[in-house]
């Protein structure tokens, strides 16, 4: 009873959608580089070499070196591990929380007021402040950063999911599913969730980008992932001091963030078309 035809058509559709294909290729490269970091990084990420500090890009250090003489290319490759892990973790957690809260608020009238007020309360804190408070309570580590940011961004998704659910709940096909005597969980999982895919995908790519930057802010404030693990955010933050004299300290981790966010956005757009059977068929 699954929509197998959709997913069989997926690679072909992805090939036709050039933008989505480009996104998939960039993301694959970034992810592969992060996974294979020990094999492809030319230097160890934390190897100090004070004599080589603040070297501009050259043949031996393609992206240059930082204030401690560490190779920026190697650090950027290793940093992808934490940055991608945190961002994807945050997207996953906030999507799950957001969809659960949003669907509950939108579909069950009795739950709407309590959940919506909770979301309002959470959104009334500045994002970073809420995350700092959560990390401070839980202690800094990769997992706590993911949990803190996941909770912080969940209301954004929940709001959008609630709105879409309110509209979808009144659609005759949802009412038809109810009158067919389908159990509520089935109405929700099979009939509602599929139709929520597009707004959720769009918002999730947005959260991915925000999470990457928020992780940097947390690190900068000293409540991020532990300091001996480079992340794109921390590289960006520490390179700020040398922005005028050694811009490559910021440019390369910055580009890494730009490309991974862009690739995910392109891919997200393609995925949205993919889960819509109206666009799956030829032409």
């Amino acid at each position, binding site marked *: 009873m699954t929509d197998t*035809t959709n997913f069989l058509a997926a690679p072909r559709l992805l090939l036709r959608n050039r933008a989505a294909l480009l996104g998939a290729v960039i993301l694959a490269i970034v992810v592969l580089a992060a996974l294979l970091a020990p094999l492809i990084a030319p230097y160890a990420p934390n190897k100090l070499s004070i004599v080589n500090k603040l070297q501009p890009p050259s043949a031996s250090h393609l992206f240059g070196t930082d204030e401690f003489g560490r190779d920026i290319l190697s650090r950027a490759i290793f940093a992808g591990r934490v940055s991608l892990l945190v961002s994807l973790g945050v997207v996953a957690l906030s999507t799950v929380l957001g969809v659960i809260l949003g669907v509950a608020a939108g579909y069950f009238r009795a739950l709407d007021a309590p959940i919506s007020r909770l979301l309002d309360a959470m959104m009334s804190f500045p994002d970073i402040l809420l995350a700092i408070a959560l990390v401070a309570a839980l202690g800094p580590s990769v997992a706590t950063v993911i949990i803190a940011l996941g909770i912080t961004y969940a209301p954004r998704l929940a709001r959008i999911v609630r709105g879409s659910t309110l509209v979808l709940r009144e659609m005759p096909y949802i009412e038809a599913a109810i009158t067919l005597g389908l159990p509520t969980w089935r109405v929700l999982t099979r009939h509602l969730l599929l139709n929520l895919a597009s707004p959720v995908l769009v918002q999730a790519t947005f959260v991915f980008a925000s999470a990457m930057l928020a992780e940097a802010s947390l690190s900068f404030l000293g409540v991020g992932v532990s300091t001996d693990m480079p992340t794109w955010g921390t590289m960006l933050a520490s390179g700020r001091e040398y922005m005028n004299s050694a811009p490559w300290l910021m440019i390369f981790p910055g580009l890494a963030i730009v490309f991974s966010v862009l690739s995910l956005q392109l891919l997200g757009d393609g995925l949205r078309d993919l889960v819509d059977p109206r666009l799956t068929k030829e032409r």
Partner: protein
Amino acid sequence: MSDPVLSVQNLTTAFRSREGWREVIRGINFEVKAGETVAIVGESGSGKSVTALSAMRLLPRDKTRSTGRILLEGRDLLTLPEAEMRKVRGGRIGMIFQEPMTSLNPVLTIGNQLAEALVLHRDMSWREAEAEALTLMERVRIPSAKSRLHEYPHKFSGGMRQRVMIAMALACRPRLLIADEPTTALDVTIQAEILSLISELQRESEMGVLFITHDMGVVAEVADRTVVMFRGDMVETGETSRLFAAPGQPYTRALLASIPRLGTMNGAAGPRRFPQVDPRTGTASEGREMPLPPAGTAPVVSVSNLSIRFDLPQGRVHAVEDVSFDLHPGETLALVGESGCGKSTTGRAIMRLTTPSAGEIRIDGRDIARARSSELRTMRRSAQMIFQDPFASLNPRISVGDAILEPILTHGLLPKAAARLRVAELLDQVGLSPEMAGRYPHEFSGGQRQRVSIARAMALEPKFIVADEAVSALDVSVKAQVSNLLMDLQASRGLAFLFISHDMSVVERISHRVAVMHFGEIVEIGPRAAIFGNAQHPYTRRLIAAVPVPDPALRGTRSAAPPQEPRSPLRPLDYVAPKRLYREVAPGHFVMAETSA
């Protein structure tokens, strides 16, 4: 007669698609003279709206291409520069559309919106414009126009808003009025008022009217000449009376033959299938009469003293008030009335999509008005529903086969392999090919989708089906076919239908009994022949009289009542509805006794 106001010559419009240019209308020729009404009639996709939009040059320019000539008072609109064209629109040509509820800006007063057009197009000062706006509102017969000038659109009903739209279209004294389905979204009694208003205004100002509609009844009512379109081609054109009396083309004959007409049931006891029309010859064979429900059975649904109220910040809406009726196996009870009368709410309450405020709904003897969700699930095997909008009632992301399969599997009626066979069988029963099971809803036409919905409702082998405006959104020929399908299913499986509809001519064909609802109450209920032949309540009579008759010879035999703003359905919170008494006119025919209130 004088030169034509509008002369369309050999108009062809093409849309750009990926394969190149695709012609949507081909070689259209017609004229509209001053003081004349020309109707363009056709089913959805016939190109009637594209014709009007081409004439107004309102189609996106990079995606469409029109050739031929469109002469407005001798000037060719297709070659006019865009700046000139803007003066023509709203100046020489006025236009009114189908949707009066969304075509006014909700945050500006009616007077303000009317005056704005006058200030812009006729160079008036705001003071002059306001005075002229009042004159216009009086011209379109809006009661107490002076006080209503400063009201906001939400205080106006659909019919009144359409009057405002007409006033706007008339603001610059156009030579031509294009009306694109102007009454389709309105109730029949309001439709009758708007149609007579348009023809009165036309007589007063000698303008030409181009009337676009799918409703042959409306055509017969208003048009001097008629253009029949089919899939982008002009099939036939001529005097309306001649066209109706002696249609020359098979398609016109088929179209005319498939219109449901009031008063074709004289003498028949049971419902009667719609005539089957042969599209090649246009000849029709009268439909077979359907059987009466077996006598002496216990009702499948028994509704007693049902009331449904909605609380709003401004008061309480008594959507359904003290409604009682029985529905027997094999019977079709039609619930008729105009929008907001509570007929759909009643149907939804029976399906428990709405929770009743008071009263009982017995299905197979068990009261489900306050049943818990586990009991409801069992109830839903005997009660099913078909919805109005064939485009929204199927989940776009689930193939139609899976949509029909799902209820069979979740209720555990059949193992998977047998269930798949059953899906094929159901598709076959509703006249679709079983191979279509793998397709998605968007690949089907409106009529086909409605057949899928019927197959899905039949999957649980229900005892009765609530059909909420199930054929209202369909084209005439498709409407007849789907209605016939419902009647066939009833005959073969003893199904009972609660047929909710505003369309009196379909109701006359399909039902055994009719209940007329007005302001949440049943004002009259009885056998179909009694309701249509011997209506007692004034509202029932008004409803039947307002249905447009597809016969130009009978035009103008009706007198329009002065327009009224309908009563507000809002009541104070402490309002107690008066207890109604019913008088039995004949066995089974009850009429609400008229009270002083």
